């Protein structure tokens, strides 16, 4: 279930975050919860089946990556951030299905904001939480 990689191309999490922010943001603007569910499905597939079956990761690696020089980073913090995003969008999807759209959009917009922040400013709140509270070296 974990499919842990030690390092990841720094652009892969950024690309994932940008697309998830776009999907959930557009979903909110045009009032289309299906886009939030799609975002959840993408993240869920990535979590359960690993990078080989992660749609956005494969899209980036196979079609969009141009440079042969790849800068990598520790894969665990962005993976934890992705897990949080999956949980939030999963809860949002359940809220939509349960007929509580206000809760669904609130959870979804939290993901939109944090994913956009990470993609554009490289401030990954999930990564910071991981590094501060869960990283093995920090106890």
């Amino acid at each position, binding site marked *: 279930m974990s499919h842990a990689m030690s390092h990841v191309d720094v652009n892969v999490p950024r690309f994932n975050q940008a697309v998830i922010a776009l999907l959930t*943001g557009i979903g909110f*603007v045009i009032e289309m919860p299906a886009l939030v569910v799609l975002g959840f499905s993408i993240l869920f597939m990535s979590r359960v089946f690993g990078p080989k079956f992660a749609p956005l990761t494969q899209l980036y690696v196979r079609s969009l990556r*141009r440079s042969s020089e790849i800068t990598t980073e520790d894969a665990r913090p962005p993976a934890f951030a992705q897990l949080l995003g999956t949980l939030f969008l999963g809860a949002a999807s359940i809220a939509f299905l349960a007929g509580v759209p206000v809760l669904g959009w609130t959870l979804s917009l939290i993901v*939109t904001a944090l994913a956009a922040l990470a*993609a554009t400013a490289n401030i990954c709140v999930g990564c910071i939480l991981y590094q501060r509270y869960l990283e093995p070296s920090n106890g």
Partner: protein
Amino acid sequence: MAELLRLSVLIAVVSLAWALVRWWERQNLHASGLTPGITVITTANCVICPQAIAALRQQNLASPLRILDVGDPSVANVRVQAIPTVIVANRSSQEVLRRTGRSTVTDAMDIVDIAHEALALGRRIQPAP
């Protein structure tokens, strides 16, 4: 209130999409080994290239100014480079035309005008024949 929030998110989404496009351009640029600015593709018989380069430098138009010989392998990647960029070569540079699919200009001052326009607009300018 909800409409205001929706408008804010719409602006954020458009900004993010634009940032994604620019990031994609930078990816291409990095892969091409080129930098934004003015690219002058020179050939052995290019009469206007030295004049154009001198004019561009004199007006501090291109920073950085990259000068490529037509035989430089980077020329093949010029088509994917990011903006703002002007490609300059003389009319007889059929090799450049073939490789980049671009038109050429024949007058050094045309090049300067095009460079002004490209940098002002912040987008790619294809020089007119």
